Each structure stands twice: as structure tokens, then as C-alpha cells.
């Protein structure tokens, strides 16, 4: 896909189809190690070891409407094209974790894209599920947890109400700016001596 965030959307949709109540999206960028790790963990139906081993095969799908399922296979291919990898760990009745690692400096690296919009869309379109979004960039990080939001807002306020949606959007944007600040500062420090 043109943006990795679209893959995240796709994998999270699998979690929703698997009946997950809580979906954790973890994005970890390590500049010095030249590594991006994206992990999606859910508490959905899970799979047997045999099924989990086969989800990277495009001709394996639990869907009955068509014979081909390309979500996980494409995500894996995109990771491997940069020299990274993808793994799936799952337990029947417990949930599934999909972990993809990328080498961002590789020429075939697909940009992460607008991950905040993906998270916002997932939260607001799936009001009956909880999401935890954790974004780490080197030493800075932030977490958005819809369970905490619900606790503060109470049961009457819906997460997809315009005010809350706008608040989540601003929060994601501000926090992202915050974790990126250090990176910008470092660039300035690096060039100041030239």
C-alpha cells in the first residue's frame, strides 16, 4: 500500500472481525538503529498455531466470499522489501499479535503515512471497542487509551461525538509534534558545529 498506516487499518479490521474488544497499536521508531516496528495486538478470537502459520499465505483466508486474502501477505512483503520482517503470534481464545519491522533508510521503504488519521478513524468508527495507541520516537513517547478517555468522560459521552473526535484529533497532533521535537532539536545540534 502507499502508506503503512493503511496496512495498520487493514490489520486492525482483522482484529475487529475476530471480535476483539481491545486493540493495541504500537509504533516504535528508532532513528539510530534505523528501525521502525509496528505491532498490533488484540484480544480477539485468536487462531490455532496452524492457522497463524498460514496467514502470510495469500491463498489462506477464513473468508468465504473469496479465496484470496492479501492483507497480512502484503504487509509482510512490504516489511521484507526493506530488509525487515513480519511475525504473527496467536493463541486460540486469547488473541493475536502481528509485529512488523522495517528498515526506514531502505529505498523501497513505504512511508508510515498519516497514522493519526488511521487511529482516529478506527476509534470513531468502532465506538464499541477500545484502542490503545502508543507512538515512540527514540526517547519520547505518548499513549492514547480510549479506556482512560471513557473513565474521564463517563458513560454518557460517546467517543465519536464531534467534540470528542476533535479533541482526540488535536491530542494526537500535539503529542506527535512533541515526540518529533527532540528529533528536530538533534538535527539542529548536529549542524550547529559546521
Amino acid at each position, binding site marked *: *500500500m*502507499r502508506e503503512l498506516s*493503511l496496512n495498520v487499518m487493514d490489520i486492525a479490521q482483522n482484529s475487529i472481525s475476530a471480535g476483539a474488544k481491545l486493540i493495541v497499536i504500537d509504533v516504535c521508531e528508532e532513528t539510530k538503529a534505523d528501525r521502525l516496528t509496528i505491532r498490533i495486538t488484540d484480544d480477539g478470537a485468536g487462531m490455532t498455531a496452524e492457522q497463524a502459520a498460514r496467514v502470510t*499465505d*495469500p*491463498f489462506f483466508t477464513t473468508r468465504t466470499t*473469496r*479465496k*484470496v486474502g*492479501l492483507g497480512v*501477505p*502484503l504487509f509482510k*512483503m512490504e516489511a521484507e522489501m526493506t530488509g525487515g520482517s513480519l511475525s504473527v503470534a496467536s493463541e486460540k481464545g486469547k488473541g493475536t499479535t502481528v509485529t512488523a519491522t522495517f528498515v526506514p533508510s531502505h529505498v523501497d521503504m513505504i512511508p508510515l503515512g498519516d497514522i493519526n488519521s488511521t487511529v482516529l478513524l478506527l476509534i470513531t468508527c468502532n465506538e464499541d471497542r477500545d484502542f490503545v495507541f502508543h507512538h515512540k520516537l527514540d526517547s519520547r513517547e505518548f499513549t492514547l487509551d480510549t479506556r482512560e478517555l471513557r473513565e474521564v468522560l463517563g458513560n454518557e459521552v460517546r467517543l465519536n461525538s464531534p467534540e470528542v473526535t476533535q479533541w482526540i484529533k488535536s491530542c494526537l497532533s500535539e503529542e506527535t509534534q512533541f515526540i518529533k521535537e527532540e528529533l528536530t532539536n538533534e538535527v539542529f545540534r548536529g549542524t550547529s558545529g559546521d
Partner: protein
Amino acid sequence: MTVKELAETLSLTVLAGKDSLNRPVTGGYTGDLLSWVMARLPENAAWLTVMGNINAVAVASLKDAACIILTDSAPLDEQARDKARELDLAVLTSRKNSYELGLKLAELLG
């Protein structure tokens, strides 16, 4: 025009799917970003690409393409070849790049 006639006219080598060479080809498409192609590949098209992996075979099969033509002599990996044979999906190869071969294909299909 059939896949077989296309192969003969454009000097393509058949790598898989020998039994489906009589399929008609009614158009063409070029692209290597599989998710992009998946949304756009027309049915019965000859798909020009450098992606010779199992995911490409899955895309061609899903979209019911007439054949995959690997351009620039791009390799077809073993897993993809086995699957294409199993599905009887024609996979051909050319030394020409997608641009050069696309021009020839467009001339043929008019």
C-alpha cells in the same frame, strides 16, 4: 487475441500455466505496487510487472487476469511458480521492460 498468440508475437517465454494459453486477452495493465494493482487490474488483461512472487499470483487470480508477463526478465520465485501451475495461471517472461513491452502490446490490441 489469445495468450498463446501474444506469446508468439512478442517472443515471450512461458513459465507456468501452459494449459490456459487459449484464454483471450482483451487489455493490458502495468504496475508493481500490488495493493494499487489489486484495485485496478482489469479482467482478462495481460499484466506487465516485475513482481514474480506469490502475492502477485494471488492478485492476478483475484482479478481474473489473462496472464502475468514478467518484464525486464524479472524472476519468478519457486513458490509463485508452483502456485501458478496449480491454478493454471499463465506466467510469461520478456527481456523488454514494461514500457517497451506495453507499447508493443498496445499496438497489437489497438
